[in-house]
């Protein structure tokens, strides 16, 4: 069965390692914080200027001055710190953040990503995404395998304006976990009950399948 958004987040959370600073984008990536594996400690950075983000506040305890990059009200953990946007991106550009998880409209087989603009139709802006993808060593994309029209989002080449070039290391969708290397998507894991054939049929970019592909272990 294909994963729901929480399932994707849960699978991505398995990629977390103890001691990492992590930047989670808007949407599915935000949910990753709900599934931190037992026994490991990670700290969340939000590019609007906070390190040590905590859960959403209880009703009535929202603070307009304390939000995340998705403009949602948040709280902080013990040991948190606030800083300005230049310092925040110094952390990102200077590779002090070990993992970035973000959404995408398209990802190509060489790791290009597009997620900020549909010419003539929609422009959300790149926000911090271009800095994040150009800087981080470890970038995981969380997205649906196909767009609303049913077209694959894992392509030979992106058709939309790029956010970054050859930067995505892994993609986790409702169907699969794919690693990007040597100009191809490598199928690492299938969602429970999803066949390799289905993943193959929904992936337009070059897909490498090596032997038996295990199911995710959620």
């Amino acid at each position, binding site marked *: 069965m294909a994963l729901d958004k929480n399932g994707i987040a849960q699978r991505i959370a398995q990629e977390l390692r103890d001691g990492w600073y992590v930047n989670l984008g808007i949407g599915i990536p935000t949910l990753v914080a709900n599934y931190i594996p037992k026994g490991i400690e990670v700290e969340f950075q939000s590019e609007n200027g906070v390190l040590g983000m905590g859960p959403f506040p209880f009703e009535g305890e929202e603070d307009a001055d304390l939000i995340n990059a998705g403009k949602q009200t948040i709280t902080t953990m013990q040991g948190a710190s606030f*800083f*300005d*946007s*230049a310092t925040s991106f110094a952390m990102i550009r200077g590779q002090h953040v070990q993992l970035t998880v973000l959404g995408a409209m398209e990802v190509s087989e060489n790791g290009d990503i597009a997620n900020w603009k549909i010419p003539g139709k929609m422009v959300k802006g790149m*926000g911090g995404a271009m800095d994040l993808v*150009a800087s981080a060593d470890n970038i995981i994309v969380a997205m649906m395998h196909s767009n609303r029209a049913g077209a694959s989002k894992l392509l030979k080449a992106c058709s939309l304006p790029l956010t970054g070039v050859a930067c995505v290391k892994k993609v986790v969708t409702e169907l699969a976990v794919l690693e990007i290397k040597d100009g191809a998507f490598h199928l690492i894991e299938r969602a429970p009950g999803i066949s390799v054939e289905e993943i193959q049929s929904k992936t337009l970019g070059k897909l490498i399948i090596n032997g038996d592909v295990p199911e995710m272990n959620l």
Partner: protein
Amino acid sequence: MNKQVGNVQEALKGLDNGMTLMLGGFGLCGIPENSINEIVKLGTTNLTCISNNAGVDDFGLGLLLQNRQVKKMISSYVGENDEFERQMLSGELEVDLIPQGSLAERCRAGGAGIPAFFTPAGYGTEVAEGKEVRVFNGKPHILENALHADFAIVKAWKGDTEGNLIYKATARNFNPMMAMAGKITIAEVEELVPAGSLDPNEIHTPGIFIQRIFQGEKFEKRIEQRTTRSK
């Protein structure tokens, strides 16, 4: 040096059509509400606004867009601001979208006398068009220029009469860098205290960057995405 002015009207003296403004804030968090509302009243037009976002349709910089006072926006994120997106797509509004980190660093550079710097952000994208590319340590970077403004308008939590500022939580965001980059920098603060009341060790923006400071009359501090969990 006393930088205190009586009110927002006095703070905005000299603001004129066609000028370039920097406005602090991220979304609706930490924006100079009082100054924005006054600029709406003043009706100043043809403004170039450098701000990470443009507020929402009916609050913050969105009000200046609704009122057609803005000729050009320099931002990183349009987000859910429908009027911003509409004016941009229709071509009524010039828009320069730049990566958020580059925006922050370009403002800082403007204030710090650094005319240009290299960054990896935007390489291989539209953002890099027409910009110099250079490889450092095997990685391509693009050259970005400093940004400057006729007026920088920032919002702080506490300020003293010398212009020293302390921001609160994530309402800091772009305010410190923009404060550095204005020919005239205006600070509106929630609480204005006498010089000597703030601990010199806790100042986020030293007063040297501020030309005018006033206590805002009213701060609505609207929340854009109120999210909570249940007890």
